Each structure stands twice: as C-alpha cells, then as structure tokens.
C-alpha cells in the first residue's frame, strides 16, 4: 500500500511503487482533470504540484510522491472559489480544445506562487514546457499577466 495525499484527501493505493503518479491519479484514484499527453515529460499536460512545485506527474513514481502534498487541477479552488489564475483564464477566454489547460494552469499557478510579478521572459521560461497544440500561447500569456495584476 502506498499512501498519497491528493488535494488534502488521503488515498491508500495498492499499486506498484514505480507506477507513475499520473496513472495513479487518473486510473486508480479517478481524478481525470490531470491529462496524459506524452508520457515522457515533454508536453506538460500532466503537470501537478508536489509540495507546491510544478512536476510532470508522468515521470514521478508514486513512491517518490508518498508523504508529500499533491495538488491537482481539482484542488486549486479555495472554499468553492476558483483560483485567481482560473478566473484569469475565463476572463481571457483562453482555451480552445482545452485538453492541455489543466497542465497550463498548474504551471502558471506554480510560477505565480514563486514569482508574483513575472517578466515576459519568466513567463516564457516557465510555460514553454507546456505544449498547446491549439497554440493559445498569446492568451495564456495575457491571462498570467492578468492574474498577476500586470497590465
């Protein structure tokens, strides 16, 4: 048994220790907001927070995630209120197909937690690991600035 704490809830999972966190979250726990995109940490669709840091869950074995707080897209709203980054995503009408957006939002929230007023270069560096095939990059950048209160 491996105990994972996801969005504040404890889950005891009968899974092999080398199972990537992505599949434990999606297929075993059943939280499907975190997406499978590439399986090799090349696209960012599976991004979650591990102790507050953005990680690609397809490359983190569950054994390495046990004992640390894990946050997924389902866990960033507080008291029923969307995270300010989610509000900014809505305000800028960011998504097209939307599949990558959980990962984009998790990368963006981690960036803003670390750098509340990021420069364009900070945003580009933090977000270039997240692919959007609909290429809504201009809107993602605007939404991050909006969430950061940068004009």
């Amino acid at each position: 048994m491996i105990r994972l704490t996801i969005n504040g809830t404890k889950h005891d999972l009968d899974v092999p220790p080398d199972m990537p966190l992505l599949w434990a979250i999606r297929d075993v726990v059943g939280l499907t907001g975190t997406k499978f995109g590439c399986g090799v940490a090349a696209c960012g669709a599976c991004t979650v927070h591990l102790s507050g840091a953005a990680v690609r869950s397809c490359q983190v074995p569950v054994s390495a995630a046990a004992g640390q707080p894990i946050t997924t897209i389902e866990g960033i709203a507080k008291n029923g209120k969307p995270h300010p980054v989610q509000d900014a995503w809505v305000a800028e009408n960011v998504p097209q197909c939307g599949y990558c957006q959980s990962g984009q939002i998790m990368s963006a929230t981690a960036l803003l937690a670390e750098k509340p007023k990021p420069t364009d270069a900070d945003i580009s560096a933090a977000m270039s690991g997240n692919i959007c095939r609909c290429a809504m990059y201009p809107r993602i950048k605007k939404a991050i600035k909006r969430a950061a209160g940068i004009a």
Partner: protein
Amino acid sequence: MLARADFIKIATATGAGFALGLRADLAPAVAASPAAVFSPNVWLSMDAAGVFTVMVNKSEMGQGIATSLPMMVAEELDAPMSAIRYQFAPADPAYNDPVWKQQATGGSTTSPNMYMTMRKAGATARAMLVSAAATRWNVEPSACSTKDGVVSGPGGKTATYASLAADAAKVAVPADAALKSPDQFRVIGTRVKRLDIVPKTNGTAQYGIDVRVPGMLIGTIEKAPSFGGTLASFDASKAKRIKGVRAVVPVTSGVAVIADNMWAAKQGRAALSIKWNPGPYGQASTASIDSMQRIALGTPGVEQSVTGDAAAVLAGKTALHAVYEVPYLAHAPMEPMNATADVRADHVEVWAPTQAQTGAQAAAAKASGLPVSAVTLHTTFLGGGFGRRFETDFITDAVEASKAVGKPVKLVWTREDDIRQGVFRSSQMSSLAGAVDSDGTIAALTHHVACSSILARIAPAAGSATGKDRISINGALPPDIAIPNSRVAFTHIDAGIPVGFWRAPGANANTFAIESFMDELAHQAGKDPVAFRRAMMPGVSRARKLLDIAAERSKWTSAAPAGHARGFAMVEWDQALVAIVAEVSMPDKKSIRVHRLTCAADCGTIINPDGLEAQLQSAMLFGLSAALRGKITIKNGGVVQSNFYDYEVLRMNDAPEMDIALVAGLDKPTGAGEVGTPAVAPAVANALFKLTGKRYRKLPLLDAIKTA
C-alpha cells in the same frame, strides 16, 4: 477548393452515407430532456425555468462550435445567451449535416453548413412562443415583439418564454418562420464567452480519455512498425505475468494488452515478444519516396485545370522554374487517440472524441458484427482534432478489444502510437514554372503537384479513378488573379504511407509552393511582391482589400526594424480569405525568430469575433509550427520520430505577436478553422529571402537554413 460535394462522395464511398431510419426512442424531439416543457424541434428544448438546451451536432475540438451554433439559435430565438445551454447530440440521422447528409465535422464547414438550420430552429421556436402569447392576449402575432426571452404585446403586456411554454407546445410547428435581417442581429457578431469555458479551466470537461464506465478495463495496442505490416506471431507469457494485466489478444491492428490501468497495460505491452511481417512497403524511406516524387515531376502529370497554352508561352520567354518540398506531418493533437467501447451480444455503446459520428458508428458496427442500428455513440469533448479524428481506426481498436474480452474497454494510444501510427499530411514536391510579361503581369504559370492522394486512400471512386483530385491541388493557384495561360497537374504517389486530412488539406502544402513562387516571380520582374500581385487583381476584390489591410497594418512600405524583414503570402479556402505578413529575423545562422504575424481575414459574416480571432491565432501558429519544425521522416516503411522531443511543435517561446484584422465581405459565414494555416510558411520563407537573399524551398525552415 475543397468542394462540399467531395465530402458527400467520400461519405458514400466509405460507406458512411448510409440511409438509416430515425430511432423510435429518439423521435420526434431528441433534444427533449426529462425536464423539457417545450421542444419545438430536434435542435432545442426549454425547461420550466426558461433555460434552453441547444443540441450541438458537431464535434467541439476547440473551434468554438459549442458556442457559435447556440449563438445562431439564440439570435433568432431572441433569448439571452445566459439562458442557453448546449448538449452534444447523439449519433443519429436527425443530426446529420444538411449539406453532407451525414454527421461529421471538418473542412471548415460547420458555420456555413449549419447557419440556416440553427437560425431556423430558433426562429421556429420564437414564432410558436409569439403565437401562444398572441392567442393568450387575443391580438395578432404581428403586434407582438420579442427580446431577451420575453414576448411584449399591445398595452404593455409581457410574458416570459417560460410562462408561455405549455401553450407554445400546443402550437402547430410553422414551416417557414421568418428570419431576421442581419441589421437586426443582437447576438451574432458579438463577443460571447465560450459556453465550455468553466469546465475547461477546472478539470471537469470530459474528453474521450476521461470516460469511466463501470467494470471498464484499459487497453493499449502494439502495432506493426511498418505501414502495411502484419502480425506473424507473438508470445504474451511475460506480459501476462505483469500485475494488473487481464488479457492479451490479437486484433486487426496488432496485439492488444488489456489491464486494470494504463500503467499495467503499457508495461504488459513492453513485455510482449512479437514477430512482424514487414508488408509491401517495408523498405520505404524518405529518400525512396522523394525519388518517386522527383520522377513524377519529370512527367506531364494528370491535367487538373488549364487556361490558354502555358507551355507554348513559357517556351518563348525567360521562364522561372522552381521545385518546392514539404515533409510528412503528424497532427499530434494533445489528447492521444482513444475510444471506449462496451460490446454486448446485441448492442454496442461507444464513447469517443470523434470528428465523424456517422463514420464512427459504421466502424463500430463493422468491428462488432452488429448492425448500425445497434450502435449508440456518445461524442465527448475532443482534445484537438485537426483532421486526425476524422479517421475511425481508434474506434475499431476499442470495439475489437471490448468484443475480445467481453467487457467495456477504454483503448488508449500512447503518444508514440500517435506519432508513428497516424495518418499523415503527405510529403510533396511541387514543380512550378512561370513567366512575367513586360507589363508586369503573369503571362504563364504551371504547377505540378506530386504527393499521395487522400482520396486515393479513403475513397478511390471519388477521385483517383479519373486522375482528377480536387483536394490534392487545393490552392495551387493564387487567389483572385486571372492567369491567361496556366496549367495545374497532379501525380499520385503510391508510397504506402497513409495520408489524411490535416488542417487545410492540399492548401497546406500547395500554398507554400505557389506563394513562394509568386514572390520569386515578383523578384524576377523587379517588383515589390505586394504591388506585383495587387496590380493583377480586379478593382473590386475581397482579396485585394485584405492585401491592402495587411500591408498597411504591417507597415509593409516602410523599412523593417534593423535586422528584420517582412514577407507576404495569402490564401483562399472555400471562400474564406487570409493575407499574412510575417516579420522575421535570424539571431544567428541556425535560428529564426518570427516577431510578428499580421493577418487580414475575411470569413464572411462573423458569428463570434472572439472565437474567430482564436481560430485564426490557432491556425496561424499551427502553420508556423509546421513551417519552422514539423517533419516526419520514413525509414524501413515506418516513422522515425516518436514523441514531442523529436517531433517538435511550437511552444510559447516561439510564439510571435499577432495582429488580426477581421473583414466581413460576404453576407454568410465561411469556415475559419483552416484558412489561417497555409500562408504562414510562405510568408516566413519570403521574409527570409528578403533578409538573406536565399530562397528556402524546403520545409521545415529550421532544417532548410542549416543545410542551405
């Protein structure tokens, strides 16, 4: 241009255009939810609170149709968008596209094909609500008006739609409810927030890959490494020892490993030992396919269109000749291919992110051995499509897997499967020749396209039997310029690599060739490229207007910033038009920086300006991704690349600034999903020529600059 008639031919040829009676349990109003109190037609219903549900018969893969189709209904219904919900329609002939006569999404046809149907659906409901109010008040319907879900009558009388529902439901459905004139529009043409915005920002939007059915297993398939390869033998003993693996079964496309979860399935798959027969194309390589194309260009090709006598005119002049090359491309939508199927003795249920409901239903019927009437198909959100999800291979995979194990199976492709087992944009060589008269107009132009035909693969009867291939030559000549002597020819290359619809089929390759060549002709004639083509356009021209706007907004006639240069290109896609100026620099000899894309677009009547801008942004950057980096190469009959580290796509650090100007030059909407893509590559290549004096005639450009 890709004629809608072609899609009908394709549908017929692929068996997707079958006639099917309306299922009894769906008629007459499929839309009617248990809460519906008023269901005037299959497209919409209203609940007791006055909230309308619009049935969306098209696939939402990002293009915004789950917002724009309800907007068309709301416009004529005179209901506020806040009272509008949407629901994806089931696969059912009641929801066929009125032009295609089947249910499918592609070719930038949703807005043009559905525009009148959705408006009429709303207008019909409005007329019935008005009729109910008029009867209640004993006045003429013409004395009543509607706005924001309320009917107003003489003497200040008002009634909400909700209060009229029971009466309206008894009104005979009018056959020809009046439509608004465009100057009366209150919804169409306004910036409306996507109706799917919230679920797409909190993880609750359900894509195919998120489907969970009680008792479901998860499977993945190891497929032949070469196209046309077949299974010789396999040993599953090691795979079956992986914890969580439930079954290993051969299916048409390979060997399926079916497990409790994807990790177990992937591990089981890695533990398989398989022998493959390479098949007839097992020796194919990029070099061998290039040779076939080069040989083809030495032949006259099959004539597709002709004016005058181009060969004779070219023989008498100093003609310019050039060959352009583009590689195979994968679609690589973010959501890997997948579908979930539950095959029972007499019924199949499928949940799928599909662009082709009718085709998917037919594929599920074929794979299960049951009739189409036994197939229930649910369309989920699509995590991107770009033409890839017009195919039904992933549907067949899921149905065969479920049938083999007798349980519901979610069948998931890996990214490697997506890159290696796709259908592809064909690689292509194009040979062009042209000459300019002393008056600066094009005297003659020929364009010979050599690539693998999509029609030859999926619907031979619709095209390749005669050698005429409208898709492969789509966009082969420049928009709105009459060329007195021209010849377009095509040669199909039977390379064994499956090719399919990829954003702006035909035009995505041909535009690079023709629009680069237009720049070459202008240069040869000593003309500015924009002025050169403008002089050949008629005085009243949608295309010329866009050319002028793009030139003005990009400051075309003033000097570019130091170290920068600008390039121009344009394209027409089924009456949609786009002109693009790219401003680029080369920070060093191995890199290209695209600073800005200026776009002027005319997609006719604009439903939702914000949605249209998003589509154009997306399409242009999709084109830029292919222009700079996109490349699939072939070795031993299979794909060399495997994932995003070697099949590179555009990331934020490559994304330029964009300036988009919208023009509505038609009184009906065109599509908008594809027209933004094709002209980006030639605009960038033309800018690189201006910057360096070198012609880059082969994509992707980041490869071209290193080898030039």
